[in-house]
């Protein structure tokens, strides 16, 4: 936000705005910037998902709209979505039905505030950054339950409740797995965590205390897959059982918000994983050996995309888990494993 304020200061006449309102402007501008980046990233991710799935299934996917490999397909889809009629079912709880997509979206969107895309490209460096990500994430859970209930449709309700149960179950192992990074750094601030990983790939946390933090990364990655309801953990929206889960009844703009939130969440968990384990915006080799010639944000985005690609790859390779297997995995495998990891990392940090 500091850098945005400085950039804005270059605009002519900016300093003549009263102080009270000037304080607001960087906030608004950074929100708009984040929103724009997020929308673009989501458009790209949707196209990527189509292409990845197609190639994994040995086909081509959309090829016509826009020319090269149908790059404009998602744009066309987005336009279609926005032009669609916005239907509110007659028997739905209208107020909650209308509010729910925004609550879900807010949960995904607000978390990006603390993601450090580059050494100075972040909106805020909260010293409780990681906790904040989890805090706003819990908004989406409520939004999902709200959507499921307000639709007044049993598939929606089941989907919503499954999603909520799944998200809160997997929040625990993922939060504990993150501790494997927080303990050695001693801070919850994402910027500080990335700064602690500077100086080449050997300093990335994924390679710290081998294999402890690496296992933490694996646990976090699995749990985060479940938190964003991706296959193999997509039972909340399992088409064959629940139509489309909690957003069955939604259409048009409101559906677009769910869609946006879903892909934004994929990016969010990938971003957190990148910042925590993969060195964030930092360069692969020590700067003294090869200077960093790729800008930090691009590097960050590249790492994020790699993780997003893995998420997609998994989706098209693995079958869906049953509900009981899902809970078994969270409570009886990931949770004890992550607790053991935290103990191990704590021990190593203190006594090594």
């Amino acid at each position, binding site marked *: 936000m500091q850098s945005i304020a400085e950039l804005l200061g270059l605009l002519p006449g900016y300093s003549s705005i009263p102080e009270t309102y000037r304080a607001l402007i960087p906030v608004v501008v950074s929100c708009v910037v984040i929103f724009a980046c997020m929308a673009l990233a989501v458009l790209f991710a949707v196209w990527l998902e189509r292409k990845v799935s197609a190639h994994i299934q040995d086909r081509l996917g959309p090829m016509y709209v826009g020319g090269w490999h149908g790059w404009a397909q998602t744009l066309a889809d987005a336009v279609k979505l926005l032009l669609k009629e916005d239907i509110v079912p007659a028997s739905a709880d209208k107020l909650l039905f209308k509010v729910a997509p925004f609550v879900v979206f807010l949960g995904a969107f607000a978390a990006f505030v603390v993601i450090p895309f580059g050494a100075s490209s972040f909106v805020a460096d909260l*010293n409780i950054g990681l906790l904040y990500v989890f*805090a706003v994430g819990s908004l989406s859970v409520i939004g999902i*339950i709200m959507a499921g209930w307000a639709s007044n449709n049993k598939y929606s309700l089941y989907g919503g*409740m499954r999603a*909520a149960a799944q998200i809160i179950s997997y929040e625990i192992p993922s939060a504990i797995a993150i501790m494997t990074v927080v303990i050695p750094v001693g801070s919850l601030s994402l910027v500080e965590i990335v700064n602690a990983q500077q100086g080449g790939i050997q300093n990335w946390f994924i390679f710290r205390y081998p294999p402890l933090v690496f296992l933490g990364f694996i646990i976090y990655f699995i749990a985060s897959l479940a938190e964003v309801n991706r296959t193999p953990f997509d039972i909340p929206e399992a088409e064959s059982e629940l139509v489309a889960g909690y957003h069955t009844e939604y259409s048009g703009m409101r559906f677009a918000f769910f869609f946006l939130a879903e892909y934004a969440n994929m990016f969010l968990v990938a971003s957190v994983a990148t910042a925590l384990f993969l060195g964030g915006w930092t360069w692969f080799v020590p700067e003294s050996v090869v200077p960093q010639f790729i800008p930090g944000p691009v590097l960050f985005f590249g790492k994020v995309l790699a993780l997003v690609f893995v998420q997609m790859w998994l989706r098209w390779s693995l079958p869906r888990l049953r509900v009981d297997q899902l809970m078994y995995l969270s409570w009886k495998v990931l949770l004890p494993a992550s607790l053991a990891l935290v103990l191990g990392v704590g021990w190593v940090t203190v006594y090594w």
Partner: protein
Amino acid sequence: MDNNLLAQIVFYSFAVLTVGSAAVVVFSKSLIRSAFALLFTFFGVAALYAFLGADFLAAAQMVIYVGGILVLLLFGVMLTHKLYDLNLRSETFQFVPALVVAAAVFAVIVTFMLRTSWHTGPPASDAPTTAAIGELLMTDYILPFEAASILLLVAMIGAAMIVRRRSE
């Protein structure tokens, strides 16, 4: 503070959000709306904590109250009613006497709270609290910290025992 006016606007909007949504919790005729209104109350309270410089607590409020307790309450509402019952009416009784009592409680507490000369010192600084809280939990408050873990264990096993089906 140079953006004092701004801070005041934000504060008052969060105050209104908190109290207003709490009023919805209490007076709404629809049970489920009460529950969802609680979301905004918790959120508003978290914002108030942030105002008071309690950043860690604000996040903890969101994680535990919104992500945990509210989800539990919502599940409680949904599992104890038939599905499709959108217009879950939550009945009230003794409405007027209770209103009088609550108003009296409010009047008394507010009157005396505002007249009391609290033991005031200079406001604590807005320094980040996480490290200090962690330090205190491991030193001065180690016993409550450990006791709370026993409490959670008792609550977890107790709750699981009570809701488990009778078969086995």
